[in-house]
């Protein structure tokens, strides 16, 4: 089980307030996106959940337990792939598991096969393309022992074609395992295509401006992006972000 519950979270950096009374809930097996402009404090939310930072106010509960300032409770995929350059891909993806015991190399190999990285198991990160590195970083977060997954703009550095491929790939993996996911992005289409629910963040200080339930059937195909409902939702979110 992994349920995340954030209550009235506030974070200041010196004089500037980045988060102001943020409330957020992710249910078991739910895929929730945080959508907000660049610099609105999305990564800061993750750093707080991950225990890198202490909130000024508010509490973060994971499965009912207060995890303020406590590291190692979530599985995290950072904004940059953050692979270790001297480790091969297989050694990289087992890192999260390695910190807590003996990692399962066979399972890691299978996951890499499924991620289309079967030929790169013993390659170094420098030999991979940007998309492949993101996939490796995602596999690493799946193999980590923590079951709640936080993804910080995993595809923002990729080109449009690769990004759609990666989104489809992510969905296919997610639908098999159904972990609880908190996903951060500034791409509206990406948020709609992937999520069960979208939380739109305001500019600084960030707060949830609007909450949108995405009810398209799963498993989703990319055709859904061309439906009228999808485009209408995109327009609605766009207007919210523009402050109209």
């Amino acid at each position, binding site marked *: 089980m992994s349920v995340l519950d954030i209550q009235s979270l506030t974070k200041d950096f010196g004089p500037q307030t980045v988060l102001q009374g943020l409330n957020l809930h992710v249910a078991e097996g739910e895929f929730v996106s945080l959508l907000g402009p660049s610099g609105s404090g999305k990564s800061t939310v993750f750093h707080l959940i991950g*225990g890198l930072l202490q909130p000024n106010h508010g509490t973060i509960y994971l499965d009912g337990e207060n995890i303020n300032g406590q590291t190692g409770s979530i599985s995290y995929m950072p904004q940059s792939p*953050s692979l270790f350059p001297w480790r091969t891909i297989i050694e990289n993806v087992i890192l999260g598991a390695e910190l807590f015991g003996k990692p399962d190399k066979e399972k890691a190999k299978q996951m890499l096969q499924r991620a289309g990285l079967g030929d790169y198991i013993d390659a170094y990160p420098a030999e991979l393309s940007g998309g492949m590195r993101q996939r490796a970083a995602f596999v690493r977060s799946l193999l980590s022992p923590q079951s709640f997954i936080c993804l910080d703009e995993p595809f923002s550095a990729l080109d449009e074609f690769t990004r759609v491929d990666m989104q489809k790939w992510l969905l296919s993996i997610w639908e098999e395992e159904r972990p609880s996911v908190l996903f951060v992005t500034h791409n509206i289409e990406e948020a709609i295509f992937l999520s069960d629910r979208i939380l739109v963040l305001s500019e600084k200080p960030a707060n949830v401006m609007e909450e949108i339930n995405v009810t398209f059937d799963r498993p989703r195909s990319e055709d859904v992006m061309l439906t009228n409902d999808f485009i209408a939702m995109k327009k609605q979110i766009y207007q919210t972000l523009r402050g109209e």
Partner: protein
Amino acid sequence: MKNWFHQAWRPALVMFVILVGWEFACRMFQVPSWLLPTPTEIGVEIVQGWRDYHHHVLSTVHLTLVGFVIGVSVGIMVAVMLHLLPKVHQAVYPLMILSQNIPIIVLAPLLVTWFGFDDLPKLIIITLVCFFPIAVNMIDGLKRTDQDLIHYMKMAGAQKRQIFTKLEFPYSLPSMFSGLKISATYSVMGAVISEWLGGNRGIGVYMTLASSSFRTDRVFVAIFIIMVLCMVFFGLILLAEKLLIRSQSSGKEDQS
């Protein structure tokens, strides 16, 4: 092999031209050999004198290796300690830099006064010149560890010890090797200088004897040997670096 030749022929040619010019100049102006011997005379002495000087070479190599190992160990320990204990870093780092400002020429006789003519003062001198480049470079490398990677490790729940062994230490290896390369050549020089202190073996001794008896050709033989030793040593470090440091792009992974 071809590639190696491609890189080596230019410096080799320059070297050759210098030697030929030297040879001709000496012969033309009939420079006495105690003042400046010709390259051929030096070459002959290198070959013929081998039986007289080879035990000096062995002794110096031995001293260098022992001193180098001690110096490197001290350097790595100092770097790790100062990195893990920031307060100690603050207190000790300036002293470490000051230690490099003590002129060896002044320190050496003092060390003999304190520790006698054993190997101990010699090893202290080599350690003193060796540990510094490694310590300084490695501290830098440890400090420069990619912040994103540190953040990842912390969020993943790594303990301080794991962050050090799995991330910071491997991250600092390329920097450590920059230090090792400098120390490798320093250690040979340090050994020769320390041999001037006394004792009856080593290139330093051979050199002093040669120069006091006006065997200038032998002084050059000594210089030649020191240069060869430095190069061999440097080459070994390069080799170790190649074997040890994996992945082509050592250091920071480039942005995707």
